């Protein structure tokens, strides 16, 4: 098939599937969170509230779209779609099963990191363009956090690249399918790297306990304070998309992606992504939030040195096992 055609068709399918997943991710999260808080979660719209996401979207769509007078109108309108764009673009290289990915880039892992580094931009643009002090504070926090946690995230992925000896995500998964998952192989090192990746990814995606940018109790809603209607909905969607994609990435990088017995690869990938995402959700509804300066301390004083140490250990391990290639 023509690669361009493949890319377009596949992207269409992927975007549709991911958007639906996102919608139902909100439903699932609300259900689970409700049960954790001894509530029921959505029950009214449809059976067990299954139509709730659609109702939410409709509600957001019919809300008044307010642009503050003092806002930078063009940038204000640009930010929400841009967040969704970057979140979706990351999905292009996540391998769902052998051959089932939009583009099997040689540098897939690097591509993901590059895009996730860009994620802070739309948030920052939105926060600055709102011309709101709370939004601005949130935006500053988002940028500071984004570029700080970028480093341990990058380094942890570098460790995987080092161990797998390839930058292609499907290549990394293939290596794990052949030789064992990276979460367990080299014992301890892989697990530590995974923990590092997970924490950094949580922080990168502004999930609790690292959600200082949108800290509602302090900054009202952070960068999205001034957004209404579907523009807010887009931010919300991008956040969920991002978390799902990060979970998928974690599954591909550390949990062997599509590798698994009996069932076809896609099932395993979906299962692992869902599992990882649920752990993120579980953490989200359990922990309190760090303070910004504490997050920076955590990143620069603990995570960055730890990731550098792990990188060195991984290099030693690779050298010992494979020798110099």
């Amino acid at each position, binding site marked *: 098939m023509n690669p361009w055609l493949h890319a377009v068709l596949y992207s269409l399918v992927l975007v549709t599937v991911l958007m639906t997943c996102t919608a139902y991710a909100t439903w699932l999260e609300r259900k689970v*969170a409700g049960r*954790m*808080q*001894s*509530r029921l979660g959505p029950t009214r719209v449809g059976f067990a509230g299954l139509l709730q996401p659609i109702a939410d979207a409709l509600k957001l769509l019919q809300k008044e779209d307010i642009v503050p007078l003092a806002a930078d109108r063009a940038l204000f309108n640009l930010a929400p779609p841009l967040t969704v764009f970057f979140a979706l673009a990351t999905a292009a290289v996540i391998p769902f099963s052998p051959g089932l990915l939009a583009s099997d880039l040689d540098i897939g892992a690097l591509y993901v990191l590059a895009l996730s580094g860009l994620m802070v931009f739309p948030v920052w643009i939105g926060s600055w363009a709102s011309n709101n*002090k*709370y939004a601005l*504070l949130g935006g500053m926090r988002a940028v500071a956090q984004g570029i700080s946690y970028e480093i341990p995230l990058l380094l942890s992925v570098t460790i995987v690249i080092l161990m797998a000896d390839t930058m292609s995500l499907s290549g990394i998964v293939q290596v794990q399918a052949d030789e064992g998952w990276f979460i367990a192989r080299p014992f301890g090192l892989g697990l530590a790297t995974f923990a590092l990746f997970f924490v950094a990814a949580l922080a990168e995606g502004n999930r*609790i*306990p690292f*959600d*200082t940018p949108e*800290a*509602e*109790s*302090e*900054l*009202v809603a952070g960068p999205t304070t001034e957004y209404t209607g579907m523009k807010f909905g887009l931010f919300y969607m991008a956040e969920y998309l991002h978390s799902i994609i990060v979970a998928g990435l974690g599954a591909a990088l550390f949990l062997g992606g599509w590798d698994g017995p009996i069932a076809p690869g896609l099932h395993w990938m979906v299962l692992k992504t869902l599992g990882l995402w649920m752990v993120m959700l579980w953490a*989200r*509804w*359990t*922990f*309190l*939030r*760090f*303070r*910004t*300066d*504490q997050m920076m301390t955590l990143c620069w004083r603990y995570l960055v040195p730890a990731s550098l140490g792990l990188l060195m250990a991984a290099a030693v391990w690779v050298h010992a096992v494979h020798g110099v290639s």
Partner: protein
Amino acid sequence: MTLERPDRADPYLDLDEYEPEADLMVLNFGPQHPSTHGVFRVVMYLDGETIVKAVPYAGYLHRGVEKLCEKLTYAQITPIVDKNDYVAPMFNEQAVNMAFEALTGTEVPIRAQYIRTIVGEIQRVASHLLWLGTFAMDLGGAIGGGTSVFMWCFREREMILDLFEHLTGCRFHYNTHTLGGNRHDIPAGWAEKVHATLGHIAQRVDEYEAILDHPIFKARTEGVGVISAQLALDLGLTGPLLRASGVDHDLRRDAPYNIYDQLDVQVMTDTGGDCAARYRVRVREMRESIRIARALVDNVPPGPICGTKPIKLPVQTRVKDGQVYVALETPRGELGTYVIGGGDNRNASPYRLKIRPPSLHALSALPYVLPGHGVSDAVAILGSLDPIMGEADR
């Protein structure tokens, strides 16, 4: 208000001093803000995210209750002041009624005193539970672990409201205290319900402690918002705030009312003076209140529950000329009621009724505590003060 502290400049005195060159950001924190616990405004002067100066403004919830009370008869005041501290209404009712009793010289029967003590202690648990939930929410956000603790606390608080519903018929604004005693006697089977509920809550409190015994919680609270004992005394802080700063003071023990003189109330103190200390004090007080309430509820003596004839006619209270000040220990501290009797319609309404709300004094600590902290800490500190704006603004 001036403080005799040369080392500390009074932030009130330079209220409007603001240099544009200092490049500070003026952040209006509130009155419409998720974590100001009502309508309350703090103007923060931020350097980056660090607060340089903070000026609190109260009064957004002012309803003129004290003035209103001058027009109402003594019987009608109770349900009105109920709404002051809307988290612990039992204490509001009791405070004014104790003041009126002192003014009229009414004897409160022992059974009513027991009931008052029991409902007070149960109400204290409810109030502290609500505080714990909202404090966790301040620290953990509306979308996150904070809400979980919040929901759990409310789940337990709901059971206490059920208890009050069985006793008084209302879940919140009870109007159960009256001049000379109580309006509602304890219904059958209530003691067992109290035992079941409070035993259950005691277990759940352990659970909250376990979930909050987490490095993140400690990092957010320890060393944050330290109020020294001297500052606390200077500002007239009372209740858990004062005790968390290491001052051993509790009206239940030091100026007993009701039957507290017969009880051995453990006064919980802590030395930290920070948010963590206030948290510890309140959690321990919850346990102590549970203990007191459970011990008392089995031993309520028989007898009448009201020392005067029940109100039949709207205007009938005989009041001496004079003035009284009555204070009692609410979950937030000393709730004082100052009443002047007499005046033109002496037997109908008080000449003047002044309420000393502990929350207002707690809020006055903000300008001294906030500077040097970040915005995140401001939320934690404000939450740890446990202000109720209905009471602070009245």
